[in-house]
């Protein structure tokens, strides 16, 4: 149907998240038909990303500079460190504009099933950063899953001698959530974490 180069492009596109074989075929065709407006800019962007993007040696995020823009920003509050599982969680928190501090990206969570242990996570650097006298609080912004919370408790144990306050995100009713539609686990967590109004 198409030459091997186009087949290869479609095969590679089909492996990207959110794309299947059909949507990869449409994307490949779109790129081929709109060479100047779509293919060339995409190639240039990919080339730039490949050449410039690196992992931040301070927090483990990705950026075109090292240290990354968040770590290098002097307006950020150095006393609060937010620990996240991966870069997409960091981006999600940044979108809220609610967190003025700095981040630390673990690169995963402890997982019994997948054989991920503490040595596989970016924990050594976290202990060094938490021991900095400027850091007063470490917020564990990890998923409300068994693996996420197991990791949170492990880190809390790990940091207990660093002299920092270790806190975690609240679990409960989401904004716009109706109680009738919430699962039992979220409801029971929300009840346990109730606060005076």
């Amino acid at each position, binding site marked *: 149907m198409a030459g091997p180069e186009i087949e290869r492009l479609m095969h590679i596109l089909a492996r990207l*998240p*959110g794309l299947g074989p059909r949507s990869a075929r449409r994307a490949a065709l779109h790129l081929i038909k709109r060479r100047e407006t779509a293919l060339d800019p995409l190639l240039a962007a990919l080339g730039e990303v490949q050449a410039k993007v690196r992992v931040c040696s301070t927090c483990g995020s990705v950026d075109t500079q090292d240290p990354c823009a968040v770590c290098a920003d002097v307006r950020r509050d150095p006393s609060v460190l937010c620990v996240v599982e991966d870069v997409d969680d960091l981006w999600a928190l940044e979108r809220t504009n609610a967190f003025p501090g700095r981040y630390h990206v673990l690169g995963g969570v*402890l997982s*019994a*099933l*997948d*054989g991920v*242990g503490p040595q596989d996570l970016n924990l050594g650097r976290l202990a060094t950063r938490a021991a900095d006298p400027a850091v007063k609080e470490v917020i564990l912004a990890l998923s*409300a*899953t*068994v*693996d996420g*919370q*197991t990791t949170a*408790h*492990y880190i*809390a*144990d790990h940091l207990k001698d660093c002299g920092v306050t270790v806190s975690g995100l609240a*679990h409960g009713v989401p904004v716009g959530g109706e109680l009738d539609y919430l*699962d*039992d*686990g*979220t409801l*029971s*967590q929300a009840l*346990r974490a109730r606060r005076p109004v």
Partner: protein
Amino acid sequence: MEWRDAGIVLGARQHGESSLIVTLLTSAHGRHAGLVKGGMSKAARGLYQPGNLLTVTWRARLEDQLGLYACELAEANAAALLSHPGRLGALTAACAVAEAALPERQSHPLLFDATVALLAALRDAPEPGYGAAYVEWEAVLLQDLGFGLDLSACAVTGSTDDLAWVSPKTGRAVSTEGAGPWREKLLALPAFLLGAEEGPEPDATAIAQGLRLTGWFLDRHALAAQDRRLPPARVRFAQRWTEHIPPS
């Protein structure tokens, strides 16, 4: 092929972008995996957390196929334990050990009932009683796998009194008198494993001893036969209790 059963989630792995391969410990079908289409969705993800008790329907064209699961939540155990480090550690250790040690698709009704009891103890038992419940669960697991401890009488003297040790070779109990000069080589037997109704409540030392005892036989017998070692989650759980023991 179709069956309906109760199942406890042992683990779930992402399959493709939106599906999960979920492994359950079921009442009548043992450790059994199945595909859950759409299991990665926001609404469904919480259902497949380790420790949750589900009502499942499994369907496949042939018996040997992976098959599809349709699940409903019966008890949200994971959510109840998320904020308790020790209890959550016990849950992850139990799921990891069961996942590693149990053969697939072989019925273990005794162990299923013991796991339901363990989950109830993790939710409700006071500190540190849940640790003893975990050790008792591992003893049932060993028994179900054919490596059960024989704690009925002393292997040396035949006495049923003062049983305080277990032979690391045979898994049989040994009394203080029978241990004699071999005491150093034996594993300590905590009193709560003898099922005595009277006696002191198990403390952290007794639970650490129990974990060392069951861990020894799991590691050397049940898991070594499959070229596996104790899962890291189980090692970390045992460390929690060892760190509680005051230096003697």
